[in-house]
C-alpha cells in the first residue's frame, strides 16, 4: 500500500508507524517523528526504551519490522546498497560508546570515513579537513595519539570530530553527554550548538541529561512503550503535571 506523506516545512526526516520487535520485546511499536531543517530534536526516554534502536533504524543499521522512514524525502528502506551509502554521507552518527577504532590513531580514525566513502577529496583537502575538525573540538595536539591514550571526554570530542568530517546535513547524537563530568558535558553541549551554527545541521539528540536537553532542544519527544508519549518544547515538558514526565526533571 502506497501511502502519501505530506511534509510540512520540508522535514529532513519523517517517520511514521515505526515498529521494531526483538522477539517478544516490542521495542518500537508505532513511533512517529518529524525533524525539520536546522531543527534540534531531543528524544527522551528511559534506559532500554529503544532510543538507540530508533536512530539505528534511521541510518539503516537495523531493519524495522514495519513503518516508514523518509530522509530527505527518500524512503530509506527501499534504497539499494549504493544509494544507502550515499545517504549515509549526509548523516553523521555519534555513537553512544564513541566507537573510535582502537587499532588506529586519531588521524586514521578521522581519515577512515573520507577514504572509505566514494567521495572526491585530494590529499591536501583531506588533511585540511582533519585539521579543521580537530581544531573545532580543540584537540589538534592529539592527532597522532591512539584512542587508548585519550580521556573519556577527549574521546567523545574526537568521535564528534569524526562525525563532522563529512559535513553531514543531519547528525544523530546518541547520549552525547552520558558518563561525562558536568564541565566536560557542558563543553560537548557547546560544541553541539557550535556545529549547528557553523554547518546548519539538523540533529536528533538522545539524552536524559536535563542540562543538555534544556540547552539544545527545539522540540522534545518522550518515547515510552515504543510510542510517542508526549511531544512539545522544553517549557511544556517542565510545566507538565504528568507525574511520569516530571520524573525526568527531578
Amino acid at each position: 500500500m502506497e501511502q502519501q506523506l505530506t511534509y510540512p516545512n520540508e522535514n529532513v526526516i519523517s517517520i511514521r508507524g515505526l515498529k521494531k520487535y526483538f522477539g517478544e520485546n516490542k521495542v518500537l511499536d508505532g513511533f512517529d517523528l518529524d525533524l525539520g531543517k536546522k531543527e534540534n530534536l531531543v528524544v527522551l526516554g528511559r534506559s532500554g526504551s529503544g532510543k538507540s534502536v530508533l536512530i539505528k533504524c534511521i541510518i539503516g543499521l537495523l531493519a524495522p519490522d514495519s513503518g516508514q522512514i523518509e530522509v530527505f524525502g527518500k524512503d530509506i528502506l527501499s534504497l539499494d546498497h549504493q544509494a544507502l551509502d550515499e545517504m549515509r554521507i549526509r548523516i553523521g552518527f555519534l555513537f553512544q560508546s564513541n566507537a573510535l577504532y582502537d587499532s588506529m590513531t586519531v588521524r586514521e580514525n578521522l581519515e577512515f570515513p573520507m577514504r572509505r566513502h566514494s567521495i572526491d577529496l585530494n590529499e591536501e583537502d583531506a588533511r585540511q579537513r582533519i585539521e579543521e575538525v580537530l581544531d573545532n573540538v580543540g584537540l589538534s595536539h592529539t592527532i597522532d595519539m591512539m584512542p587508548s591514550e585519550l580521556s573519556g571526554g577527549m574521546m567523545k570530542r574526537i568521535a564528534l570530530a569524526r562525525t563532522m568530517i563529512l559535513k553531514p546535513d543531519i547528525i544523530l547524537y546518541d547520549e552525547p553527554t552520558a558518563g561525562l563530568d558536568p564541565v566536560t558535558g557542558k563543553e560537548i553541549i557547546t560544541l553541539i550548538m557550535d556545529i549547528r551554527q557553523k554547518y546548519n545541521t539538523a540533529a536528533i539528540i538522545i539524552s536524559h541529561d536535563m542540562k543538555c536537553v534544556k540547552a539544545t532542544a527545539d522540540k522534545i519527544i518522550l518515547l515510552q512503550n515504543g510510542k510517542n508519549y508526549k511531544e512539545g518544547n522544553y517549557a511544556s515538558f517542565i510545566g507538565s503535571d504528568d507525574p511520569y514526565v516530571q520524573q525526568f526533571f527531578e
Partner: protein
Amino acid sequence: MQLPKSSKQFFSEAGAISRFTAWFFHEAFRPRYEWKEFGRQCYEIGYKSLPLIALTGFIMGLVLTMQLRPSMLEYGVEAKLPDIVSLSVVREIGPVITALIFAGKVGSGIGAELGSMKVTEQIDAMEVSGTNPYKYLVVTRVAATTLMLPVLVVLSDAISLYGGYLGVNIKAVTSWDLYMTQVYNTLQFSDVLPAIIKTFLFGFAVGMVGCYKGYHSKKGTEGVGRSANSAVVLSSVIIFIIDLIVVQVTDIFGFN
C-alpha cells in the same frame, strides 16, 4: 518430540556458524577487495606468531625424540629414531600442536578484538562509513589465518626436525647429513600432502570461529572475555574433528 534445551542451543549455534561461514564464500570472491587490511592481518597473524611457533616446535621435536628413545632401545630399533620422529612430527604432531597453539594465540585474539569492536559499536561505525564490516574484518582475517597457518606449520615442522636431530645427539652421535637422509627416505609425498592440506582447514576453522564468536559477542567486558575464551575452546575441538575426518578420508584414498 521436544528437544532438550541444550541440544536445541547446540543446533541453533551450529546453524548460525554455518550461515556465518557460507557468508564468507559469498563475500570473499567479489569486490571490493581489502588488500591492505589483508596484508596487515597476515603480518599480525603470521609474522607475529613466528617466535612462539618456533619455540614450541623446537621443544616438541626435542622432547619427542628424548621420550621415544627408551622404547626404541628396548626393541632394538634405536637407529630408526629419525624415521619415527619425522613421521610423527610431519603427519600429526606438527600440524595439530601448531594449530592448537595458533588457536590459543590468534583465535582468542580475533575473538577478543572483534568482540570489543562489536560491543563498542566500532563495527556499526564501519558500516555507516561506507565499509562492509564482514569483508573488512572477517574475510581478511579468515583469509590470513587460512594462508598463514600452513606456512607456520611448515616452519614449525622444520624446526621440530632440527630439535629431533639435537635430541638424537644427546645420547648418540649422528651427523646432520645422515639424519636428514634418513628423514627424506622416510617421508613420502603421501605423508606430507594430506598433512599440509589439513593445516589450511585448521587455519580456516580458527579464523572463522574467532570471527564468529567476536561478531556475536554479548555486551559488556564479560561478553568479550567469553567470546575470546569460547573461540579457543570451540576451534580446538574443531581442529580435532577435522583431524579425525582427514585421517579417514586419506585412509579411503589409500594415502597411508
